[in-house]
């Protein structure tokens, strides 16, 4: 498993790992019931410290994204997509705030949304 970690970002590294895993679940690359790599193996793959991966897994368990299987490891839990998506919605909200400040009209934003989603607001 691999995704890029930005060590110089102001976003904490454990947050980046949590978001990386949520994206893998949302895109279907990690399925419900599937095992995640061991803490050590993911730490090696990403080039980060054990404690950082352990913290990300621990928080994902608290959020209900992962489950602990005693003595076996961590598996993807049955999580509502909305829970997984909320960090993306927060990011979108921030971009929209910037758009608003920059004077981009609501109509224009909706136009862009339609463009990306491909037509009549369906998703």
């Amino acid at each position, binding site marked *: 498993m691999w995704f890029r970690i930005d060590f*110089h970002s*102001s*976003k904490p590294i454990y947050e980046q790992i949590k978001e990386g895993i949520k994206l893998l679940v949302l895109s279907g690359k990690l399925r419900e019931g599937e095992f995640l790599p061991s803490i050590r193996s993911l730490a090696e793959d990403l*080039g980060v410290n054990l404690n950082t991966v352990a913290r990300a897994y621990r928080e994902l368990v608290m959020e209900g994204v992962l489950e602990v299987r005693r003595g076996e490891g961590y598996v993807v839990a049955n999580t509502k997509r909305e829970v997984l998506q909320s960090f993306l919605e927060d990011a979108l909200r921030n971009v929209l705030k910037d758009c608003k400040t920059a004077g981009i009209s609501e109509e224009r934003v909706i136009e862009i949304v339609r463009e990306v989603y491909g037509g009549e607001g369906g998703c």
Partner: protein
Amino acid sequence: MLTVRGLKKSYGSKVAVDGVSFEIGKSEVFAILGPNGAGKTTTLKCVLGLRRPDSGEIKLAGSFSYLPEEKNLYPYLRVKDTVDLFERIGKNFKREKAISSLEKYGIDPKLKVSELSHGMKTLTYLSLVLAEDVDLYVLDEPTWGLDPLARSDVLNALRSLTYEGKSVLYTSHILSEVEKVADRILIMKAGKAIIQGYLDDVKASYKLVVSERELDGYLLKRTKKELIYLVRVDRIPEGVEVRDASFEEIFEAIVRGERDVA
């Protein structure tokens, strides 16, 4: 693993370390940062028992090895003789580990220490110190004089030590390097610990605020019209422009800042 409480050390009338406390857990990389003369090396030397603290408490549970700030090996010895020497005086020295590390860095064991470049000398010394099988590695400027590739190899070597349950205490000037490898940091200035914690938490605790008037925070810089402050996230005033702060900006604002925080 290591607990330090209220460490104080003066040389004559000069206070080198002024009441520093921190702890290092198992499998952790702990970095001490700070400008020159902040007291980093003296702190390490007190931890190792090379300097007697004036006051304070140091509890070290386990064995350690040490890479000093001056990477002085016997200049007339060959690298391979230096390995023999470390094997004889070392507590739990793994010869094969030292040899394979030297090989990885392309250091010819037949060379005399005096024939090595600064970087090669650092890598040689580091290979020997990391070949000691101990609980805590205390490293003073372990990447000094290294090129980016060697530095990256060294950081990976430090990280893999923690995978085996070892801990690392080290000092560095290079913030980008610390961001890659440290779990916890301690920033020192004039002998005092001005900030410490998990690096991830430190990063999440501060934001930059762009303001036209003075406010309570660490001033990072001033432009013609604005003041740019580093402010704790829980103390951001209403109605100001807020931006993310990089670790470099956090470091700079706090170390330059006139105010000290506990």
